[in-house]
């Protein structure tokens, strides 16, 4: 009976039971799902996996870019001439403004100095090529060809020739992910050009934007331009963001539903400009903080009083 004490020979070794393995992997999957979504603390892990995936992804993009290249090569001379003429025309129409821009900027700076107002920040940045749209059908993101190696950091705004495109949300060693302003709940602080009212515009996820928290009787019309207000410390002031296309005023709600379309070619491929991060905003004035504390102190004391009453 000596043989019974021995472990069975490893002929039929199958590893852990399938159900145990399933439980293990499911637990890990759910854990990283929650951690990635709630705490966003897996960015370093994501970056290292991205180093492996990135070459595969670039290889996968080659046929598409080859087709694009062939198409542009075979594009007729006539089409190119037309485009060239259009561009020349556009250049001419903007020439009067552009030629005086340098002089205006200097003048503006001098006047601001005279008024001892803080100087305006200049917009600088680097041009990045959109490599591809992220495959995730639940969000609207694009991948650009500049990353940590070019000094891109998360939070930088991105614009194209017409207006704001989005914001860098993740940075990988050789690429970066730009979340478009049309992504669901992506927020951009804006200002209505005509009335100067400030608000925040949110992406809806279907290619449109919604201007929220505007009272039903707010002074806003179809066709109004929205530009960045610059209050957030991310976007510089004055970049066009969206245009109002539809307003639903329902007296049952205290806010109007205002729909806008982006001005930039947000969903198109091409080149975008990733602007340098803004200089840090001056710290909030101490009075506000003091008042906040006083408020919370007051609230706490009210609570205490209520608690005492309850007792």
């Amino acid at each position, binding site marked *: 009976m000596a043989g019974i004490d021995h472990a069975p020979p490893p002929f039929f070794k199958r590893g852990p039971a399938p159900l145990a393995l399933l439980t293990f*992997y499911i637990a890990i999957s759910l854990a990283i799902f929650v951690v990635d979504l709630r705490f966003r603390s897996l960015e370093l892990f994501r970056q290292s996996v991205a180093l492996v995936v990135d070459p595969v992804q670039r290889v996968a993009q080659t046929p598409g870019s080859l087709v694009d290249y062939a198409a542009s090569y075979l594009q007729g001379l006539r089409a190119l001439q037309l485009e060239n003429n259009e561009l020349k025309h556009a250049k001419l129409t903007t020439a009067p403004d552009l030629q005086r821009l340098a002089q205006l900027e200097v003048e503006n700076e001098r006047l601001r100095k005279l008024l001892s107002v803080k100087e305006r920040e200049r917009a600088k940045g680097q041009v990045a090529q959109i490599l591809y*749209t992220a495959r995730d059908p639940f969000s609207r993101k694009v991948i650009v060809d500049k990353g940590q190696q070019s000094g891109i950091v998360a939070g930088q705004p991105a614009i194209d020739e017409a207006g704001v495109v989005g914001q860098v949300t993740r940075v990988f060693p050789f690429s970066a992910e730009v979340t478009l302003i049309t992504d669901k709940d992506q927020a951009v602080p804006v200002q209505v050009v005509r009335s100067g009212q400030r608000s925040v515009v949110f992406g809806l996820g279907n290619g449109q934007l919604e201007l929220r928290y505007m009272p039903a009787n707010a002074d806003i019309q179809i066709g109004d331009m929205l530009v960045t207000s610059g209050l957030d410390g991310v976007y510089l002031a004055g970049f066009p963001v969206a245009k109002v296309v539809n307003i639903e005023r329902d007296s049952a709600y205290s806010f109007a539903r205002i729909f806008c379309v982006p001005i930039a070619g947000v969903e198109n491929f091409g080149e975008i400009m990733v602007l340098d991060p803004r200089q840090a905003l001056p710290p909030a004035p101490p009075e506000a903080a003091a008042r906040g504390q006083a408020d919370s102190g007051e609230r706490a004391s009210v609570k205490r009083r209520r608690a005492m009453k309850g007792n």
Partner: protein
Amino acid sequence: MQPTFSSSRILLPVRPWFIFLSLIGALLLNLLPTAHWPGMPDWVALVLCFWSVREFRRVGMGWAFLLGLLMDVADGAVLGQHCFAYVLLAYVSASLSRRLLWFPLAQQALQIMPLLVATQVIQALMRLAVGAEFPGWGYFVGPFIATLLWIPATFILLLPQYQPVDQDPNRPI
């Protein structure tokens, strides 16, 4: 092993490097720009399901988890979304494999369909539960196309295992 149990052809043993290559190929197909077309199947899910049915001792939940992770990062999706769906897919396909291969190919495809649909629906539910936008019905067409592809996929992925038809009469196997 035979392609199906009604067939009299006997297959050569599978080569591990071919499994690896086919999975990487599927990943590459998933990353092509065509992935944005509506109704494109999830190639990784299809190939993973195939090998989980055929060779569940070699391709199991570990591979599913790893591929899921790669897909999550490549997609820019939330980490764990593909992992969860693929691991479940691998588990269910492996547990079905004993029964599934008794059926002719068309009926196999019919039984694979709910698995592939579930893979997609699980991912959609996970994302919708945490407040993503609805991706549109085109997202759910992919698995049905993948079901149709089960038959050609079986043929292509088993190609290296087929023996020549004219055999040596002295060595029947």
